[in-house]
């Protein structure tokens, strides 16, 4: 239940929401016209295509690249695979393996459209059934084991080695962590393929691979039973393989995914069209799989000033919300991000932090908000850092945040060591339990600093969204509206992987999920 410590002008909030909706729908028009190599590889994977060729290239890439190079990806890889399945009487996996031996599937004779449709339907059903089962399993486990009290304590593991990550994750769970995120190695988001197998070499993170997902999920299932809480697993549905990772996560029962409509553009210089198209399909998969997404607005405040730009975070929350809803996500799946990033030297900074956190809390009452700790103003002074985190922990429990990323005292030094995580968990446990009832005890003065700051942010956000709505999101991004970063509308990585859908484009997963999720406003097929 969300506290109403602030008096919000709900008309302005509604106005902002409508502006964001209009912004999102405008982007969506474009999204509907395009597919991407990554979307198509996702389809291939969901058809069961797994493994790599002799050059370690994933078979999903082998197949899609071939179709792309042959210039026939505008029809969707699903069609070509199904056609080959019918033509050769093989499974999609076998077809893919043959592709890596030289088979050219676009060159195969066209088969009976009815049988091709049937094949598509069969493999789609099969795959979606697995995802649905995983979703049910999660729900059953959550019901049986329960979860932490919340704000849910979320920690990262990032040793680079999945087996070391497992040790670290288990130890964290045993000390009170509710959510484990396996941070990705620094280079992965710009790889246009998903590495294969379990991995033990990463820098500042561990490769996101399906095998790694499986290893960690199993370990967390074990430790969940041990601690009597369902421990959630998170990875990054972000970068050039966004929807593929969504599919892998759905199959391996991840529970949350970092997944943002704009992060890749801003922070990885990924092409806009690519990002928008990828995020749409990936969100649909997350929606279907019952996965909670975590958006990345917190990142804005690492490059932009947290006081000046607080409203940009909120604006982006609105946009992420609308783009999420359009893709079929429910409100309870929208882990909108924000952060405790004010300069600790700012007088009354804590009051401003409370103002932002509580404003966002009240504007998105059903969303499992993701609250990020201080990072930018953390220094090598681990003692002071631990105190900054304590104040963050307090702000979180006071404003009823949902997903609470634990700040690490060593934030400015290294990805967390085993003991850093435990110290942080103890910090959060103490502060939150010691002050749990405080939110219900207090109210904010009507004319106080906190209330006024909240009003200012809401006013700013309306103006800001109005400007963006007028110029369009792409132009706004190109003009540095978010995070003080400018990205050209046509530039960025992975732009060549965007393909305009043909009239006969098919994506049976999208069709089926749109139907099941009740997405009507956005037709799945392009009109050329």
């Amino acid at each position, binding site marked *: 239940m969300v506290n109403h410590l602030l008096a919000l002008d709900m008309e302005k909030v509604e106005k902002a929401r409508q502006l964001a909706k209009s912004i999102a729908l405008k982007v969506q028009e474009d999204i509907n016209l395009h597919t991407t190599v990554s979307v198509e590889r996702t389809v291939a994977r969901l058809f069961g295509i797994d493994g790599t060729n002799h050059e370690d290239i994933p078979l999903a890439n082998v197949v899609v690249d071939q179709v792309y190079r042959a210039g026939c990806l505008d029809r969707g890889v699903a069609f070509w695979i199904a056609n080959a399945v019918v033509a050769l009487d093989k499974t999609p996996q076998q077809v893919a393996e043959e592709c890596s031996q030289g088979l050219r599937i676009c060159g195969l004779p066209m088969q009976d459209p009815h049988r091709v449709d049937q094949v598509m339907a069969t493999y789609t059903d099969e795959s979606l059934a697995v995802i649905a089962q995983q979703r049910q399993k999660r729900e059953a486990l959550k019901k049986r084991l329960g979860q932490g009290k919340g704000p849910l304590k979320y920690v990262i593991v990032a*040793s680079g080695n999945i087996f070391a990550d497992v040790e670290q994750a288990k130890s964290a769970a045993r000390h009170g962590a509710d959510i484990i995120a396996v941070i990705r190695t620094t280079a992965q988001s710009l790889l246009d393929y998903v590495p294969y197998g379990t991995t033990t070499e990463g820098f500042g993170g561990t490769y996101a691979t399906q095998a790694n997902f499986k290893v960690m999920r199993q370990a967390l299932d074990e430790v969940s039973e041990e601690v009597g809480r369902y421990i959630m697993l998170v990875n990054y549905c972000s970068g050039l393989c966004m929807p593929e990772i969504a599919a892998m996560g759905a199959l391996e029962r991840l529970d949350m995914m970092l997944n943002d409509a704009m992060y890749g553009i801003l922070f990885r210089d990924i092409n806009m069209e690519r990002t928008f198209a990828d995020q749409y399909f990936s969100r649909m998969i997350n929606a279907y799989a019952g996965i909670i997404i975590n958006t990345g607005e917190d990142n804005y405040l690492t490059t932009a000033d947290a006081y000046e730009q607080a409203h940009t975070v909120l604006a982006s929350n609105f946009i992420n919300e609308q783009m999420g809803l359009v893709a079929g996500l429910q409100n309870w799946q929208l882990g909108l991000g924000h952060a405790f990033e004010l300069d600790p030297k700012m007088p009354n900074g804590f009051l401003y932090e409370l103002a932002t956190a509580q404003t966002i809390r009240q504007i998105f009452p059903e969303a499992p908000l993701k609250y990020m700790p201080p990072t930018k103003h953390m220094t*090598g002074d681990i003692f002071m850092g631990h105190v900054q985190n304590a104040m963050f922990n307090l702000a979180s429990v006071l404003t009823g945040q949902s997903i609470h990323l634990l700040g690490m005292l060593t934030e400015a*030094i290294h990805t967390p060591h085993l003991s850093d995580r435990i110290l942080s968990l103890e910090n959060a446990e103490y502060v939150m339990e010691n002050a749990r009832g405080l939110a219900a005890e207090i109210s904010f003065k009507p004319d106080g600093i906190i209330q006024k700051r909240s009003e200012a942010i809401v006013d700013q956000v309306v103006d800001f969204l109005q400007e963006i709505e007028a110029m369009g999101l792409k132009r706004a991004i190109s003009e540095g509206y978010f995070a003080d970063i400018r990205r050209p509308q046509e530039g960025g990585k992975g732009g060549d992987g965007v393909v305009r859908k043909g009239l006969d484009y098919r994506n049976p997963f999208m069709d089926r999920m749109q139907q099941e999720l009740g997405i009507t406003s956005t037709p799945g097929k392009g009109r050329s």
Partner: protein
Amino acid sequence: MNPNDKVIKPYGDSWGDGQVQLSFTLPIAAGPLALEAAKRLALQMGLEGVQVVNMKDLHGFSHFILYGRSRHSVDLDQISVVDAADEAMSFEEVNAFIEEEIGRKIVVVGACTGTDAHTVGLDAIMNMKGYGGDYGLERYPMMEAHNLGSQVPNEVLLQKAVEVNADAVLVSQVVTQKNVHIQNLTELVEMAEAEDLRRKLIMVVGGPRIDQALATELGFDAGFGPGSTARHVSTFIAKELARKLS
């Protein structure tokens, strides 16, 4: 190094990474010279890849926070320790043991000696109520426990021990600044020896900075640190007395 090795190192996030955090103050102002001095100290301590992550000027002093990889390791097979906690008997077991093996009450006298006025730790061991879920010695039917309280001079403690014909004395020392406890404990042992009481008495010392090694070094029979409860102490005394009497 792998997870099954018996030769272990500090661990950060990969096996054998040797990660150690340290902090200290140097008596010179912060600056390149102090920074270099800090690094050299860390090097002498056997750290590699030394990272000075924080240097703070304290006006004529400087404070450092460092991380590094320890070159040192420890071979677990070379260490033999006994786990007092594992071997401790329960309240009932201790009493039964005393009844059987000694056949009479054990008499103990406890005190915070010297200038020490921290009674909470000694009370935790001796008072009825006890500590950490364990009853204190006063509650033991087979013990006669005298708690003399705080700031008891060593001679007074020994006098009392003689007076009640004690089997054991229990000394608590909490203040350790400038090793005041070492002076005081040494004096007690010397007095006991001079008065020819040392052999008769089981001598036990406890406190947050006390451990078995220090206690033995100072001539005590046992030392009990943080987390000790009456069970540990009574077990030790009962067994030790049985051994002495046999």
